[in-house]
C-alpha cells in the first residue's frame, strides 16, 4: 500500500542565510540539495530540526532559536518557518513565527497556526491561543507564555486528533549527519527518534526491534548485501538494562564477532542506512534529511548507497539529501536536484531547480569549475 508522507513545501524567512526561502518539493520522494560551501544546505536541515525538536517536546523558544539566528541581525522582521505536509491524504500546514521586541533577550512567539486541509485546528497570536472547533472538541481560547511554542502542549480529545497525528509524524522525522567515530552500539533504552549524529544508534536499533521485530529482516538483508560475510547482528543484555550491538561475521575460515564501535566509519554508515530503510518501512513513512550521506563511503559504494536510499523512499516517505560528491549527484536528476547559492555572506540563499538551469556539458565538471553558479 502506498502511504504518502511528504513535505510539499518548506518556507523559511529571516533565519540565518535563509531569507524568503522556498523549497517546493511536492511530489518528490527524494530530492538533492547541492551548492558551494556556505550556500545554506545544512541550514535547511537546521530549520527542519527546529520543527522536529518542537514535536519532540522542546517548546522553550530560547532552546530553539537565538537572537543571533536572525539573518544579519535583522530583528524588525519576524523569523518565520512554514511547512506544508501531505500526510494520510490530507494537507497539514504549520506556521510558526518568532519576534524579538526591543529590550527582549529571548525571542517570543508572534504567530503559530496548524491547519488541516486549510481548516484551522488552532491559531495563535503572541500569547493568545484560539482552539477551533474540531470534531467533539469545543472552541477554546486561552493564553500561554509567549516564550513557549504551543504545539507540544495542546491535545484534542478527537480519536484522530490532528495535532497528535502531525506531532508524531514530525517528531519521527529523521535529521541525520552521522559522526561514525562517536557511534557506539550501547543502549539503556530504545528510541524511535535518533539524534542528528546518530550517536544513539544502539538505542535506535533497540527501539526499532521493540516496535517492529520484523524490521530485523530488512536490516539484515541490506547489511548482507553490503557486507556479504555478515552472519547476524546481536544486541545482548550486558547489564541490568543495557545492551550492546555486536556484529557476527562468518566465512569458510571461521567466524568473528565485532562490537559496533569497532566497525569502520563506512560500515557504521551502512548500519545507519539499514536502520533508515527499515524505519521508513516499519514505522514510517518518514521524512529523512540526510546531510551528505556519501561521507565516509568508498567511491564504489556511493552510487549504490544513494540509489538504495532513493529506492527505499520511492514508495513512501521522502528523502532529502545534500552532497558534494559527484557519484551521489549523478544518482539524482534535474527534476529533483536543487542548486543553492549565495553571492556573499551578506546575501541570502537562492534556490533553483537544476532542470531549470542552463548547464553546458557535464554537470559534475560544471560544478567542479564553479560555472553552475551565476
Amino acid at each position, binding site marked *: 500500500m502506498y502511504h504518502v508522507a511528504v513535505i510539499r513545501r518548506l518556507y523559511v524567512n529571516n533565519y540565518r542565510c535563509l531569507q524568503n526561502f522556498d523549497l517546493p518539493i511536492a511530489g518528490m520522494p527524494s530530492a538533492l540539495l547541492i551548492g558551494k560551501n556556505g550556500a545554506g544546505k545544512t541550514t535547511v536541515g537546521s530549520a527542519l530540526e527546529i520543527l522536529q525538536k518542537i514535536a519532540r517536546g522542546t517548546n522553550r523558544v530560547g532552546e530553539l532559536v537565538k537572537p543571533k539566528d536572525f539573518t544579519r541581525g535583522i530583528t524588525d522582521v519576524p523569523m518565520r518557518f512554514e511547512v506544508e505536509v501531505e500526510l494520510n491524504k490530507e494537507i497539514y500546514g504549520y506556521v510558526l513565527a518568532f519576534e524579538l521586541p526591543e529590550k527582549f533577550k529571548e525571542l517570543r512567539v508572534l504567530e503559530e497556526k496548524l491547519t488541516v486541509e486549510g481548516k484551522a485546528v488552532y491559531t495563535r497570536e503572541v500569547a493568545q491561543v484560539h482552539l477551533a472547533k474540531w470534531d467533539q472538541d469545543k472552541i477554546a481560547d486561552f493564553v500561554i507564555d509567549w516564550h513557549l511554542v504551543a504545539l507540544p502542549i495542546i491535545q484534542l480529545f478527537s480519536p484522530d486528533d490532528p495535532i497528535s497525528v502531525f506531532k508524531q509524524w514530525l517528531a519521527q522525522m529523521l535529521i541525520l549527519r552521522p559522526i561514525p567515530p562517536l557511534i557506539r552500539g550501547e543502549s539503556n533504552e530504545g528510541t524511535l527518534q535518533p539524534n542528528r549524529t546518530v550517536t544513539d544508534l544502539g538505542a535506535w536499533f533497540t527501539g526499532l526491534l521493540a516496535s517492529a521485530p520484523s524490521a530485523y529482516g530488512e536490516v539484515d538483508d541490506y547489511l548482507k548485501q553490503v*557486507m556479504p560475510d555478515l552472519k547476524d547482528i546481536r544486541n545482548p543484555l550486558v547489564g541490568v538494562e543495557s545492551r550492546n550491538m555486536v556484529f557476527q561475521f562468518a566465512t569458510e575460515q571461521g567466524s568473528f564477532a565485532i562490537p559496533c564501535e569497532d566497525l569502520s566509519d563506512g560500515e557504521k554508515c551502512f548500519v545507519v542506512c539499514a536502520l533508515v530503510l527499515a524505519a521508513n518501512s516499519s514505522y514510517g513513512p518518514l521524512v529523512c534529511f540526510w546531510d551528505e550521506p556519501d561521507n565516509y563511503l568508498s567511491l564504489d559504494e556511493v552510487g549504490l548507497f544513494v540509489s538504495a536510499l*532513493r529506492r527505499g523512499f520511492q514508495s513512501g516517505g521522502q528523502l532529502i539529501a545534500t552532497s558534494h560528491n559527484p557519484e551521489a549527484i549523478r544518482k539524482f536528476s534535474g527534476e529533483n536536484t536543487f542548486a543553492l547559492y549565495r553571492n556573499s555572506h551578506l546575501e541570502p540563499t537562492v534556490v533553483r531547480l537544476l532542470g531549470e538551469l542552463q548547464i553546458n556539458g557535464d554537470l559534475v565538471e560544471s560544478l567542479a569549475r564553479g560555472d553552475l553558479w551565476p
Partner: protein
Amino acid sequence: MTPNRFRPHVMVLPEDRANSEVANGFLLDPSLAPRSVQVLAEAGGWTKVLDRFETDHIVEMQKYTQRHMVLLFDFDGQENRLADARNRIPPHLAERVFVIGSLTEPEELRHATGLSPEKIGLELAKDCREDTALVWGHDLLKHNAGELVRMRERVRPILFPAPLTA
C-alpha cells in the same frame, strides 16, 4: 563492495545526462535486485560511449565474465547506428553487450510521453519487469526491439530475479 564482480551484473554506460537520468529512474524500481546494476558516468557523446567501451571496458569484460554492459545513447534518427555500434563490439563479447537508446533524443521522448526522464526510466523498468511494452513500444523506442529480445533473456533475470507478476 560493488556489484559482486563474480556474479551476474549489469553496467550501464550512458551517453549524456539525459540518458543518465532515464537510467536513474530505472534504478528506482522497487523490485530491482539490489546491487545488480550500476550506472556509470556519462561519456559525453555516442561516439565517446563506444570509445570508452573499447578503452576501458573490453579488457574488464574479458576479466569479469559475469559482467553485462548496456550502451545507452541516442540514435539521432539513424537506425543503422545500432549496426555501426555493434561492429565495434568484439564477437566474443557480443552476447553480453547491448545497445539501446531513443531514436532521437530523450527530450523528444519526454515531450511525446509527457513523462519526466526518471518517470520514463521507471516505466521502462516496469515494462521489463512485467514483460510489457507500454513505453518500450513507443515510436521513439520500438527500434530497440531486437536488443530487447536479447536483454529479456540475458539481462532481465539479473535485474528482476523474482517470479514475474501475473
